[in-house]
């Protein structure tokens, strides 16, 4: 999902930067500082996840984990992903510093969307919660793919063809992320329910 340096036009970079800054500001403001350690742990998980390559047949893609970040952190996913992306850009040369804003929006906005869509279903019945968590992981990658397509509109020729390509290539990742997210949420529900959104004692 990382867009490389030098692909996008200046306007797209600036727009991405502004949106990312706004999202990060909201995230920092809304972040509960009691949970700063949790944000850090999830940022680390995100940072490392992109090194885990999923090889299916001839294709390979990597985990993103933005679904679980969104479900657990809400808006705080923005600063977490922003920091992790800076480090990925500097240390791994994934993405780049100028595309940081765009990449942050591509990965963090779907997290927030999934937070609003699914966070209040997590404490419903088991099957509902599993479905919600799976969809959270699945859809956040799908939305990221769509946003990636939008960011690339101005540089690639045909939008629909490219979105199909991106979604097709990332389909296995969506399914895996869905499963991973569902497992995480069900596990946390049992052992640390207070980490999940909407927890009432």
């Amino acid at each position, binding site marked *: *999902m990382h867009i490389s340096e*030098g692909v996008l036009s200046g306007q797209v970079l600036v727009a991405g930067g502004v949106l990312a800054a706004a999202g990060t500001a909201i995230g920092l403001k809304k972040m509960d500082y009691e949970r700063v350690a949790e944000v850090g742990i999830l940022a680390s998980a995100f940072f*490392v996840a992109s090194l885990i390559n999923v090889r299916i047949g001839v294709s390979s893609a990597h985990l993103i984990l933005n679904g679980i970040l969104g479900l657990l952190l809400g808006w705080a996913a923005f600063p977490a992903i922003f*920091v992790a992306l800076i*480090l*990925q850009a500097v240390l791994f040369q994934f993405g780049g510093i100028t595309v940081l804003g765009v990449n942050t929006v591509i990965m963090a906005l779907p997290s927030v969307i999934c937070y609003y869509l699914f966070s209040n279903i997590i404490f419903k019945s088991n099957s509902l919660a599993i479905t919600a968590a799976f969809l959270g992981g699945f859809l956040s990658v799908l939305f990221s793919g769509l946003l990636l397509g939008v960011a690339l509109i101005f540089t690639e020729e045909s939008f629909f063809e490219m979105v199909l390509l991106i979604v*097709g290539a990332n*389909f296995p990742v969506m399914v895996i992320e869905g499963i991973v997210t569902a497992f995480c949420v069900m596990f946390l529900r049992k052992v640390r329910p207070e980490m999940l959104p909407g927890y009432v004692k």
Partner: protein
Amino acid sequence: MKRLFIKWVGLVSLGLLFLAPGKMAFAHKVNVFAWVDGNTVYSESKFNGGRVAKDALVEVFDMNGEKLLEGRTDDKGNFSFAIPEKTAMRIVLKAGMGHQGEWTIPVEEIGGDVIADETGESGMGTPEKIIETPVSEADTPKMPNAFNYLSKEDVAGIVERELDKKMKPVVEKLNRLLDPHKKPSVSDIIGGIGYIIGLVGLGAYIKSRKEKI
């Protein structure tokens, strides 16, 4: 009921995994790597993790941004072309979906007369023999003869070719060392996590200060 549901979700997702059309590489970084050998520029294109970038667009620009040529990588991610002119070159690889990598060849790497010299490997045998004769057979009458038909340019050419031949393994080794296709190292990963822990500490510190005041 619950077990059944989990089983069902698992089975369906596994099924989807194997059905998934996975023809496209979708890694997070793509690298192009190019070197000069004689009068040809060779380039190698790989995704991070070592998968080759097949059928990807390669564009070659000079330093003024003017496009010199373009082509597509083959099944092994390789693309080679004859040096079009003696200038520094920027080789840009476009692997689609926002993946792009580039490599610059400075003008010093492009040899002096490489563009004119087309003889290449096949021509190498002959000059070698010529130069060997006067060295091994040291009898005087042959010496002037040898120098008669070895002009200054010939000697320069021979030296150049011989040097190229001798230096080839060294250059290849250097190229391997400079090869950007390496994976992130453990120290990179641990360093990154360390940074995040540091930021968490900073956050906690700021919070504790706010509470005191």
